[in-house]
């Protein structure tokens, strides 16, 4: 597979995203004591006593004493998911639209057949997404071990796998947006609109099943659950369907 060109094209974005992801992971672990100290301050305790949320105090105590809960609430259920959306958008929106907008696609076409062009682009993006997501997880885990916090490996692994699979779907949707527009702005805006739609769908009971972010940061893992099989299969099937449909569209489109 002729991936050298794609790797060179994506290289700087990959390095930047890797630094952001690993840096954020390290920061979340290192700031644990600081965050917990703030929450345990007398002023905050007084405030929480009067809070309308009945279990606010018990949650604060859990956050202080249970590192797995802290990990979920501050990283795998929050910042990691938000960063994964950024990862998907950064890697996907220029994939085809940039080549078409800048007219560099004529350098490729003919010298590679359409399958070679398509597969090298999409699979390089897949590998980049997986690398950044796993770097974020292992960066977090390693820092936690160095700081002597206890975090079950299996828990981290389940969250990582589900978040990565969800990000791959977001990436695949993003590349489709990149294919249908000839400039780079529209796919970028469409990606953002899709993310907002996914987030909003999680707010209503009737559309909650569409909330991909809920799957990516599943709280059941805290209670000992593993990878959610059914949604995983559905999401992977959607990825495959978009991958095939997108290829057929790319194969027969005028360039």
């Amino acid at each position, binding site marked *: 597979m002729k991936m050298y060109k794609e790797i060179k094209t994506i290289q700087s974005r990959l390095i930047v995203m890797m630094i952001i992801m690993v840096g954020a992971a390290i920061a979340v672990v290192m700031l644990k004591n600081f965050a917990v100290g703030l929450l345990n301050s007398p002023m905050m305790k007084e405030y929480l006593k009067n809070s309308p949320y009945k279990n606010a105090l018990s949650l604060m105590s859990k956050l202080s004493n249970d590192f797995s809960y802290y990990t979920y609430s501050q990283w795998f259920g929050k910042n990691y998911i938000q960063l994964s959306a950024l990862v998907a958008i950064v890697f996907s929106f220029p994939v085809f639209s940039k080549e078409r907008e800048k007219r560099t696609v*004529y350098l490729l*076409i*003919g010298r590679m057949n359409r399958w070679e062009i398509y597969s090298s682009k999409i699979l390089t993006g897949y590998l980049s997404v997986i690398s950044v997501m796993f770097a974020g997880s292992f960066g977090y885990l390693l820092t936690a071990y160095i700081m002597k916090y206890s975090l079950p490996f299996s828990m981290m692994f389940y969250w990582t796998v589900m978040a990565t699979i969800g990000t791959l779907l977001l990436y695949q949707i993003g590349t489709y947006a990149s294919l249908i527009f000839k400039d780079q702005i529209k796919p970028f805006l469409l990606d953002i609109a899709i993310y907002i739609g996914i987030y909003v769908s999680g707010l209503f009971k009737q559309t909650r099943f569409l909330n991909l972010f809920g799957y990516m940061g599943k709280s059941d893992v805290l209670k000992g659950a593993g990878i959610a099989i059914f949604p995983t299969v559905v999401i992977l099937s959607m990825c495959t369907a978009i991958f095939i449909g997108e290829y057929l569209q790319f194969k027969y489109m005028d360039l």
Partner: protein
Amino acid sequence: MMDVIEAKGLSKVYKNGVKALKGVSFSIRSGRIFALLGPNGAGKTTTLKCLLGTLKPTSGEILTLGKQPFPDGVKDASFVPEEKSLYDWIKVPKMVKIFGSFAPNFSFERFEKLAKRLGLTMDRKIGELSQGNRTKLYVSLAFAQDVKLYVLDEPTWGLDPLIRKEVLNLVNENVVGGKTVLYSSHILSEVEEVCDDLIILKEGNIMYNGTLDNLKEKNGTNLSETFLDMFRGEKR
């Protein structure tokens, strides 16, 4: 001599309804320099893109080196498009390495000789290159591929007269070596200098299809005058 390209009743209507080609038929024999001429909007670039498989013809048939070019293109052809767009943020040597990683039959040694011959500036980012240097780079990359067909759209754009002459020599040398060149340019004097056969397009139709010698003989003047007369409507 076999036909390298054969187009029969080739038509292309774009989604916006523009009829770029209206049933053109022609063939290109191997080992020749074939020019494609016409004013802006005549259908030259559409023809080239159909021949290379980047556009799907609305109707008609094309065979490029014996195969239908759409959708996968033709690996035994090398294309220099009108817009010499490359990856602006990459330095020239890196661009060459990247190109060599996917372009069939690419020779780094051949590229170095061509770059030297055309006086290409190497130690710069592509975005910092002048139009002339971009053309030199694209032409050097294209000719560093050892393929049967070279398709050149405005291959001397932005070049000074000396380098322009070198590019024309390069075109001639490749044809002597058994290759075929399809050449499109607005500079009629240079087309006249190199081409054997030509077609002249106007609004998607062929105005002339034959050898350069026949055209000049028929009109008793040079290509530039003949071309201008054809479009002014003074002579047919």
